[in-house]
């Protein structure tokens, strides 16, 4: 079954040979049967949004099956807006992630406004880290306010995944990404509440080896049709991965 991993990080991991370059990620994923993935730059998230996103573009351009998620850092708004203007129209960037210094702390809507307004014209899905209920609630507020955007909640609330599911139930422009808690109960509950068409497979690699994340899909007792949607079809459709236009 084809697999798209929508949540992979470039750089920022202490163990060598995993994600320091696009080629390493491509090889690492390929061995695990993952043909395509969406990558965000840890350099952009932790140090410099402008250079981090440009380096990422350079790397994904050279590797088939790799796509970029532009990181917009809310503490570095000017650099992030510049990166959006420079890069978000590229077909190699299929998404934008809003982040702050601490992923566990909810985003400030007033600061996010400026970045989300700048993203409007590109119409690319917006990723938000949602490792807990507070981040889910902040994300829900943004999703309701900016209902022209599709939002992807990375980690779907972590161990508070019930809150993530409830948010997605409230707002149809919220999609849930499967990294976070490896709880076998969460995917059946999410499918029951919102259907399998708004759930995307992501590992958060290198936080988790993608095979561990795939193990959750395998052991969750969901149907083959639902697995195919979550592992491939939903992401391919959302990011237009099978299209070929600029």
């Amino acid at each position, binding site marked *: 079954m084809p697999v798209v991993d929508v949540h992979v990080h470039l750089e920022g991991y202490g163990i060598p040979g995993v994600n320091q370059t696009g080629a390493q990620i491509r090889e690492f994923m390929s061995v695990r049967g993952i043909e395509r993935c969406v990558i965000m730059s840890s350099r952009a998230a932790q140090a410099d949004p402008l250079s981090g996103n440009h380096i990422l573009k350079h790397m994904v351009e050279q590797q088939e099956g790799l796509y970029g998620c532009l990181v917009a850092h809310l503490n570095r708004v000017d650099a992030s807006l510049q990166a959006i203007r420079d890069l978000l129209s590229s077909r190699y960037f299929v998404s934008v992630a809003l982040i702050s210094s601490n992923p566990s702390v909810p985003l400030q809507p007033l600061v996010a406004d400026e970045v989300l307004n700048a993203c409007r014209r590109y119409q690319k899905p917006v990723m938000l880290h949602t490792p807990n209920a507070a981040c889910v609630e902040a994300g829900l507020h943004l999703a309701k306010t900016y209902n022209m955007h599709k939002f992807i909640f990375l980690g779907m609330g972590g161990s508070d995944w019930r809150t993530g599911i409830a948010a997605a139930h409230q707002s149809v422009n919220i999609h849930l990404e499967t990294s976070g808690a490896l709880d076998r109960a969460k995917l059946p509950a999410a499918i029951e509440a919102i259907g399998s068409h708004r759930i995307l497979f992501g590992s958060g690699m290198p936080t*988790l*080896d993608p095979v561990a994340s795939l*193990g959750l899909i395998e052991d969750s007792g969901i149907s083959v049709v639902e697995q195919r949607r979550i592992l491939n079809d939903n992401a391919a459709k959302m990011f237009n991965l099978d299209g070929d236009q600029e």
Partner: protein
Amino acid sequence: MDDIVDINTMFGPLPASSADLAVDALQELMQTHNVTAACTLSTLGILLDSNLGNAATRAACSEQPQLLPVATINPTMFVGDKSALSRFAAEGFRFIRFFPREQHWPIDFAPFHWVLSSVQPTRLPVMVNIDSIGEITDLTRAILAPECVVILARVDRATLAEAIAALQMFPNWHIETSRLLAPGCLKLAADAIGPERLLFGTGAPALPIASGLHTVQFAGLDENAVSMILGANARRILNLS
């Protein structure tokens, strides 16, 4: 697939998960992944009362030979009664588990030290959940006898360096693998301390067995090391036939 022994499973009610963890669900997962034996305990022993939980564990395991009973004690309720502890080995318990975070007590805790010194005459291994940086260092001060077999459960990428440092000091300490799911961590641990000191565990049925299993299989270890981690080490340390 080689012999697989999962040393970290449980059954019973678990509010942190959305559903009760049924013994049937555990057995179904074991069957799916050809897990030959699972060390398990009732969550009642963690959440409510260790005597009640240990009795439930024994009852469940007496009906299912592939389930191996694990005892637990809550140090916050231990006031010196050693009679139950002294019976653990005779009652068939394979080791004793501790759950500091779930029961809200620190590793550096006098009643825990007391329990540890009290269970040492049973010669049963002890397995302690590790949930934050510093706990393993605290544990190096808590365990009194160097011959005591200790298993550090839920060690993850954040606590791996601390675990390796502790294992360098204590040759009878081991690491359970359920949280070593980040790329390269298992290989790093195996290279640093030897694959003979890693024990396969999953947290099933709340957590998937496939995640842990695939991570071991893709860790870049040789066949012998994989075989040791998945089953042989547990059989040796826990004296399983």
